[in-house]
Each structure stands twice: as structure tokens, then as C-alpha cells.
């Protein structure tokens, strides 16, 4: 249970500025996701909060207490690593109990807590196995068990699901979210996968090049991206960007329209083009359309649409769903 605040945190490795002044306020019990392309500083920011890296400048408050000088062991946080980082020489029981043992809890209490955590994560039959005897998903569960058993002030997750296969990832995504809500512990979760970010987060922090581009709820980011970067990063398939004439008509340097907000018609007003590729997923149809001077646009249609490459169509954006950006890439709101 922790409220975490970062006023103007900076981190540099020598001359390289990884975090260029991050301001964040993470509410108690919330699930916050750091998302961004590789090298954007999201993992560094998490490690600064964990205490595994020292800040170059700024403060980190956990429940109102500045912890920059507090070693990771005493910040009361727990972390789940991308590589799981289980202790290979200890059994599952030993792994989960390690933190409690370090805290000097009596043996009976450790056992009770470990067994409770194992039961929550369906790990009870595996308590006496070594990590190498477990599957990837089970190892991930042990790593999570090790984090929850200590009842930390907050969970820190560093891309914990990226080593799992797609189906397991979706399942674990649900489990992690459910567990966090059930325990009511603040969680900070780092990922490069914007779908994970959108589905899991109460609030998302979009990072790019060491700067926080936007901090908001998933739908805020989707509906009101602060700039071109966020607009392009959030949403799949990616938002279409149109410059020049069509943008000028809207009084902007660039306009953006999401693929799902383009209406597809055989003829009429709009942007005419030729279908290059049509992807039929059953539930959705993705069209990649060559619109001449406007460029290549992506359109998404819910359900099946019997169009084939070579067909000529006209695209028209839903007027209310057009995003406008000025020449610096910042969002312009009417």
C-alpha cells in the first residue's frame, strides 16, 4: 500500500542522460504501466524506484518519505524480473521463503505464508521442486509468489511476461491484474507491448527518449493523445498520419485518423485509393490502401468485408475522430 511520487527524477550514465527529468505521481493501490520503445528509459526508471540504480538528481517518495538514500533491501518493494531470477539452488519453497527468512520471521509463520502464497498461485504441488524442473509459466508464478509473500508496499514488474508464449501471456496478464486488484497493492509494470499496457493499466506512462510523453488512463491516451508519438504508439494497427493539403484543410500540420475510424465506401466524398493488401481475420478486416499523394493508409473494418487487392475504394474519416497536431507534433484541441 504505497503512494509513490517522483519529482523531477534524473538519471545519467556518464554523459548519457537516460532519464531527463521525470515527474510522476502514482496513487496508492493503482496499477501503472510504463510503456515505450526499447531504450526509452522505462526499465531504468523502474530500477531507480527499486533502488537498484542511484538517481543522478531528484527525489523518490514512497508514502511521503524520500528514499533515494535507502538501499533496495529496505524500501519495502518487491520486484519480478524479466528473467524470473529465481535462486536455482533453492526449491520453490526456498525461493518464496527467502525474503521472509531475510526479514527474520519465525519459521512457522514463514511456512504458513509460503503455503498461502503457493495456494493462491496454484503452486502447492511444486513446492519441493527446483526451478529447473518447472515450466516457464510455473517459474513465472514462483517469481510472482516471491514478490507477493512479503506483502510489499508495491510490486515492480520488469517485462515479466515477455518470455512466455502468446497464449500463456494472455492468461498470466489476467492473473496478474486479478491478483493486484485482490491484494490492493500498488503496482508498477514495465512493458514494450502496448496491448499489455492498455489491458492491464489503470494509468499508463508513455516514455520516449528518456522523457514522459504522456501520463493518463488507457482511454485518455487512445482518445486524446498528447502528441504524435503517443498517437502513433498507442493503438493497433497504428494511427494513420496525413500531412499537406488534407491536414491544412483541418488547420493543422498533421492530422491523424485511427484505422477503425476510416469509413470504407465504393464511391463518394473522401480519399480515393486502391487496395494493396487485404487481411481477413474473420472478426476484423485490415485493408492497406494506396491513396496516391496522401500516402498508404490502413483501415480496419469490424467483421468480414468482401474486398480484394486492386479494388478501388474511397475512405472518409469520421470528423469527430480526427486528431490534429501542430508543426511540433503536439496535439491541437478545438
Amino acid at each position, binding site marked *: 500500500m504505497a503512494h509513490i511520487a517522483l519529482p523531477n527524477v534524473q538519471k545519467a550514465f556518464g554523459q548519457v542522460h537516460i532519464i531527463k527529468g521525470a515527474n510522476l505521481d502514482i496513487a496508492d493501490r493503482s496499477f501503472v504501466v510504463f510503456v515505450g520503445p526499447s531504450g526509452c528509459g522505462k526499465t531504468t526508471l523502474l530500477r531507480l524506484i*527499486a533502488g*537498484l540504480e542511484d538517481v543522478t538528481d531528484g527525489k523518490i517518495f514512497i508514502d511521503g518519505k524520500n528514499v533515494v538514500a535507502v*538501499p*533496495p*533491501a*529496505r524500501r519495502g*518493494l*518487491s*520486484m519480478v*524480473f*524479466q*528473467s524470473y*531470477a*529465481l*535462486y*536455482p*539452488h533453492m526449491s520453490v519453497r526456498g525461493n518464496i521463503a*527467502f*525474503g521472509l527468512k*531475510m*526479514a527474520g520471521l519465525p519459521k512457522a509463520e514463514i511456512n504458513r505464508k509460503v503455503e498461502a502464497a503457493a495456494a493462491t498461485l496454484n503452486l502447492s504441488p511444486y513446492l519441493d521442486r527446483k526451478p529447473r524442473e518447472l515450466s516457464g509459466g510455473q517459474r513465472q508464478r514462483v517469481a510472482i509468489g*516471491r514478490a507477493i509473500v*512479503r506483502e510489499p508496499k508495491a510490486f*515492480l514488474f520488469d517485462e515479466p511476461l515477455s518470455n512466455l508464449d502468446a497464449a500463456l501471456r494472455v492468461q498470466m496478464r489476467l492473473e496478474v491484474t486479478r491478483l493486484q486488484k485482490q491484494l490492493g497493492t500498488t503496482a508498477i509494470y514495465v512493458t514494450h507491448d502496448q496491448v499489455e499496457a492498455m489491458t492491464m493499466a489503470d494509468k499508463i506512462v508513455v516514455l520516449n527518449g528518456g522523457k514522459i510523453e504522456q501520463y493518463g488512463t488507457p482511454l485518455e491516451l487512445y482518445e486524446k493523445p498528447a502528441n504524435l508519438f503517443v498517437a502513433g504508439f498507442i493503438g493497433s494497427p497504428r494511427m494513420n498520419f496525413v500531412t499537406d493539403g488534407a491536414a491544412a484543410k483541418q488547420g493543422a500540420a498533421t492530422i491523424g485518423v485511427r484505422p477503425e475510424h476510416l469509413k470504407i465506401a465504393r464511391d463518394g466524398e473522401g480519399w480515393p485509393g486502391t487496395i494493396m493488401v487485404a487481411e481477413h481475420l474473420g472478426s476484423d478486416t485490415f485493408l492497406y490502401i494506396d491513396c496516391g499523394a496522401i500516402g498508404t493508409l490502413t483501415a480496419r473494418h469490424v467483421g468480414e468485408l468482401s474486398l480484394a487487392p486492386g479494388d478501388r475504394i474511397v475512405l472518409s474519416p469520421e470528423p469527430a475522430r480526427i486528431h490534429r497536431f501542430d508543426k511540433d507534433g503536439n496535439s491541437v484541441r478545438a
Partner: protein
Amino acid sequence: MARVATTRRVVVSTAGAWLAGFVIFFPILWMILTSFKTELDAFSVPPSFLFFHWTTENYVTVQARSDYVHHAINSIVIAGGSTLIAILIAIPAAWSMAFSPTKRTKDVLLWMLSTKMMPPVGVLVPIYLIYRNFGLLDSLTGLVIILCLGNLPIVIWMLFTYFKEIPKDILEAARMDGATIGRELVYVLTPMAVPGLASTLLLNLILAWNEAFWTLNLSTSQAAPLTVFIASYSSPEGLFWAKLSAASTLAIAPILVLGWFSQRQLVRGLTFGAVK
């Protein structure tokens, strides 16, 4: 067809490996055989391989003439003591270099190893004088110190390589779990490095056990280990091959037995990382 060729290749390479193994082992085998010959048989031309008069008289003579147990105890103290101290110094040194490397870490490692490039005989005189002035000549303490310092670079280097194989994440996980640096070393790093530690320990024991330059030059009787015991058969009244062999066999026997029982651990440690 392909199968036959493969089988033949397996037979040929197996035979080759056995041959190579035999060639490498041959000096030790020859030494053991010689130790059971009479002095006359030991010199015979052509040498007799198995069909000679087997005798244990060399062992009896060696035992009667010099105190094997005294030398063996010295060897154990010197090899064991120097190895233990070296390991205790090397663990924190290798730990800090492996997990908090700086720009200079590689240089420091190379500098440490460079001390092994110097021929020991080059510093014999200064070391001898220092030892004389400090009263360390022919003392167990003196030999433990010199062998510990001599092997320390290799011990640190080996442990550094093993520690580097341990994922940093795991140590960070321990730190997040509330472990102090000391507990991290005791509960996480050291147990994970056991194969590496064991092979470093064994290799260093063997090196220290067989080290002859410093032990021969810095000790005479009181602290003399088995190397001195062997050497004593090569000079005074001429060369006695059979007795020299008997003494050598006695000298290497303990370390040979140790190596034999720990070979799995030794091989596992030396190929640590390669087989991951």
C-alpha cells in the same frame, strides 16, 4: 553405408582418445612401475615393462630413511592453508570485479595475472633476503604466505570467470528480497558458485601441493613438504631412480586420490558455463 562409416569413425576416435590418454598418463604409470623395481631393473636397457622382479623394498627404505608423515603433514598444511586463505581473499575480490566492474577492471585483472608472467627465480634473492630478515625461512607460515600470494592471481581470475556466469538479476532479486551484501554472498552467490569454487579449490590444491621452486628454496627440514622429500633422493649419493620413484609415488598419492574422487566436480567446474 553411412552407418558403417560412422561406426568406424567412432571406433577410430575412441581408440585415438584412449591412446592420447595413455600417453599423457604414461609418465605416472612408469613412475609407479619403477617404484616396484630394484635399482638395477630401474636402469636396465631395454627397460622392462612388467616382467621384472617386483619388490616393495624401495618403500621400506624410503620409509626407514626419511619421515614421510612429517613431510606429508607439512604438505597438507601448506597446500590447504594457502588455498583456503587465497579463496577467502579471492571471493570478495572476484565478487566486486564481476558485479561492480569499472573501466579499469580488465586492467586490474591483467595486472594481477602479469605477476605470474615473471619467472620466480628473478625474485628469489630479494624474497630470500626478506624471508631471512623476517625469520620466515623454513617455516610453515612463510611457505603458506608465498604459495598463497603466488596462486592468488589464478584463484581470483578463475572465480571472476565463474561469478561472471551468474546472472546479475539473481543477486538483485536477493537485494530486493532484503538481503544485505554479506547475506547475498553467503546465501545466494556462494551456493550458486559451488561448482566453480570447488574446481578452483581443487586446482589450487594441486598447484600448491606440487609447487617445487619456492618450497625447495625456502625450506630445508622443519617446514619441508613432500617436494623436498622427493628431491632428497635425487642428489646426495647419486641418483636412485627406484627410490626416487617410490618417494614420488608416495608424494602424489594423496592428491591423486583426491583428484580421482573429485574428478566429476573438477570437470564440471572447469566446463562451467560451456555446458549451459
